[in-house]
């Protein structure tokens, strides 16, 4: 009987207790609702920050290994030697199909435009919408660079669970349509964005103009130089742009650059007297930097989740490393020899006299004297300093009989012939063939390297930014567009702006400006800024420069279409011959690092990346890219 009573009490308690609906209706504590987010400027900013954060990158400061894919650098890391042993790139390389990201941007734009944001100030609301549309345009730019024309999805798509998803299948747009879409979006949003040189990691008027210039010059050169590779096109226009459109794209590029340049919002970075130092600090100076337009910013952090910049940690010279790693990106001799002499002439590095004897230098840095100031700003050369410490890059002793004494450990000591005590026979930075973190080409990278103490520690890393757009590139786009439109005089003027900052005192004249010159100037000014692949693709030079043949290092570094399939190095040695006037002097030898066994081959099917079978199964309207 008592049992039944208890049961009854429990039943009654439950029934009454649940009578109150509000009791169950709780505000979630772990997520924010649309109404909460879209009323608050700070919260919307964190939504848009996430979208900025997810901009796809290929080569960047947190992806050093991608620089070792081509001929710019050697990857001095055990797990990356394969990059120099392979021949082909898979057709799927550089493939991107991030419609999840685009959907989120579309949702962002939809919500920012909706009534949810009616309480925001109109200019704040307009700025957020403009940023969303910029991000979407940028996402499509990343796609069109890699894949050619892609489906233009401008609304967040919803499936209606009807069992038939064909209404969600969009065909690929023409390549030119995607470029036109990007350009028109940029035109549409420019008025709603601030014009402020100190805003670096959000969209500004300056960024929109710089991006317009880059987008238009890509489209223009695909239209013009695509004529050289008629095989790289699809009959539906998904790949390939008609040559007749080249001129209008070039003039769009020129107009955008001139608008940005004449606005004088930005100016070239010129804060330091030493031009190489100046060039290097352009990339790491975060205080009132007048040149940088758009960046991906970082903070110092002990985590490895992408919020801090690992470039300095993974690339610091071994001799002065603040942690147990470094030295990974080794700029190639191919790149280093491309830097001109200061009298506007080109010269390869002569290691031997015409009689075959070595050329002796008092200091290793003398080998690189009289060159473009950007060289020492981009590359850490033997005989120079980093973070105030002398570099120790030398491969060993060369004896009078031509034999070499060297070691296979950093700074190893051995006894030289005729002496009794062991001395150091190889530098603490290498080069040691096959020893990771040593300068296996004889060089370390300088660009983007943070000079702050602690930036090379795993527990801190660097808070310097990754520069995506800067004024110098805008000048070079202006020069290229002006040149292609037949105005070589103007082109020379823009190129000289960039070149004077690099220490050139003799200006280029209109007759000096050629296509080769423009290609070359971008190569040296923008090295390690992630332009190389896209540039060679749009000029349709990639299959010529990386043709898979094992050729020697070119002696014509000024030529745009010179084959360069393998990375070479230049190693300094100390000369040992007691009693000789040359004893203790430096000689150089050109080397091919032993890990470089393959030769890069860019096939025609690499121009536009493979759209995988799964995507094409899901949407049969997607056509395949050519030559795959």
């Amino acid at each position, binding site marked *: 009987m008592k049992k039944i009573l208890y049961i009854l009490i429990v039943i009654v308690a439950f029934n009454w207790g649940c009578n109150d609906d509000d009791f169950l209706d709780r505000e979630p504590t772990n997520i924010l609702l649309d109404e909460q987010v879209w009323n608050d400027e700070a919260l919307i900013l964190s939504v848009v920050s996430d979208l900025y954060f997810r901009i796809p990158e290929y080569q960047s400061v947190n992806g050093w290994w991608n620089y070792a894919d081509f001929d710019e650098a050697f990857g001095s890391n055990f797990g990356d030697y394969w990059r120099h042993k392979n*021949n082909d790139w898979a057709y799927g390389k550089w493939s991107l199909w991030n419609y999840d990201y685009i959907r989120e941007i579309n949702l962002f734009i939809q919500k920012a435009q909706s009534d949810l944001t009616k309480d925001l100030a109109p200019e704040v609301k307009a700025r957020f919408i403009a940023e969303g549309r910029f991000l979407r345009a940028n996402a499509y730019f990343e796609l069109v660079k890699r894949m050619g024309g892609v489906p233009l999805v401008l609304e967040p798509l919803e499936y209606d669970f009807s069992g038939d998803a064909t209404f969600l299948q969009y065909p690929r747009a023409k390549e030119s349509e995607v470029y036109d879409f990007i350009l028109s979006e940029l035109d549409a949003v420019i008025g709603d964005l601030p014009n402020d040189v100190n805003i670096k990691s959000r969209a500004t008027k300056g960024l929109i103009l710089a991006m317009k210039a880059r987008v238009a010059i890509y489209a223009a050169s695909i239209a013009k130089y695509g004529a050289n590779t*008629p*095989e790289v096109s699809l009959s539906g226009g998904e790949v390939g742009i008609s040559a007749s459109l080249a001129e209008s794209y070039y003039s769009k590029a020129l107009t955008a650059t001139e608008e940005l340049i004449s606005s004088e919002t930005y100016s070239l970075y010129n804060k330091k007297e030493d031009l190489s130092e100046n060039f290097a600090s352009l990339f790491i100076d975060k205080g009132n930097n007048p040149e940088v337009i758009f960046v991906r910013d970082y903070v110092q952090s002990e985590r490895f989740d992408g919020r801090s910049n690992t470039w300095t940690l993974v690339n610091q010279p071994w001799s002065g490393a603040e942690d147990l790693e470094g030295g990974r990106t080794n700029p190639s001799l191919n790149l280093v020899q491309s830097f001109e002499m200061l009298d506007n002439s080109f010269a390869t590095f002569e290691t031997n006299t015409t009689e075959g004897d070595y050329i002796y230098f008092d200091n290793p840095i003398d080998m690189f004297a009289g060159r473009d100031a950007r060289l020492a700003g981009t590359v850490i050369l033997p005989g120079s300093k980093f973070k105030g410490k002398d570099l120790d890059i030398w491969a060993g002793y060369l004896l009078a009989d031509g034999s070499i004494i060297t070691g296979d450990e950093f700074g190893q000591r051995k006894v030289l012939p005729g002496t009794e005590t062991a001395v150091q026979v190889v530098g603490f930075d290498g080069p040691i063939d096959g020893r990771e973190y040593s300068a296996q080409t004889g060089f370390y990278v300088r660009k983007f390297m943070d000079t702050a103490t602690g930036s090379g520690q795993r527990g801190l890393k660097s808070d310097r930014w990754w520069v995506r757009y800067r004024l110098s590139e805008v000048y070079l786009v202006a020069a290229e567009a002006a040149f292609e439109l037949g105005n070589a005089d103007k082109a020379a003027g823009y190129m000289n702006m960039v070149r004077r900052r690099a220490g050139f005192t003799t200006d280029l004249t209109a007759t000096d400006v050629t296509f080769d010159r423009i290609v070359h100037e971008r190569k040296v000014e923008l090295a390690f800024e992630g332009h190389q692949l896209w540039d060679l693709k749009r000029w349709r030079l990639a299959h010529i420069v990386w043709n*898979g043949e*094992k050729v020697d290092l070119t002696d014509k570094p000024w030529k745009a279409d010179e084959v360069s399939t393998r990375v070479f190095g230049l190693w300094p040695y100390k000369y040992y011959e007691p009693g000789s006037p040359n004893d203790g002097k430096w000689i150089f030898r050109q080397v091919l690092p032993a890990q470089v066994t393959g030769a890069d*081959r860019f096939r025609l099917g690499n121009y536009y990346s493979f759209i995988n079978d799964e995507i094409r*199964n899901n949407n049969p309207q997607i056509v395949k890219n*050519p*030559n795959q």
Partner: protein
Amino acid sequence: MKKFKTILVLIVVTTVFTSCEWDNYEKPESFLKGNIVYNGEPINVSYNDVKFELWEPGWQLSYPIDVVIDQDGSYSALLFNGSYKLVFPEAQGPFRTLGSDTLDVTLNGNKSMDIEVEPYYMIRNAQISANGNNITANFKADKIITDADARDIERINLYVNKSQFVDFRTNIANAEMGGGDIADINSINLSVSVPDMSPGQNYVYARIGLKVVGREDMIFSAVQRIDL
């Protein structure tokens, strides 16, 4: 307790040994082999470059099986029995396909099948010989496609290598002649001197390659062993 343990072990062991029968799928057992030929003559290409696709219709999602053609124009694929559609992707190989671009292949046991295609050029009467360290080649470039699709020669090469893989990627010596420099396509001469090899060997492999304008893949003569 001990008995129980033994029984447990026995059960596990028998399960492991018998269950293998169930989760093993049948493996593909039928070979499809053959050559890419023109009038019965194999077409030599560079390795890993020319491929065709086999599609098996009837599945919900379709993924092609890529079959790569070897240097000497031969191919082989180990497949399940079934009917396949054989397709050359566009712009593959130094040839064009004949008639329809899709070939139906029904496989029931091993099958040998030559695929007829029409190359832009054939290399005929390739004679490669050594004179000291000098390798000379004489051959005729036979223009096969002469209709609207006809293409000019971009360049011809004589490649020499230490191993049997001889093409533009793997060679130790290479002589090149641009298409415009050819005086008489019925008798083309190329010569190249063989550099010092280490370790030394007294023979090399050589073949002639021909590239037409606007096609990525080259056509070659058969690889020949040349004694020095």
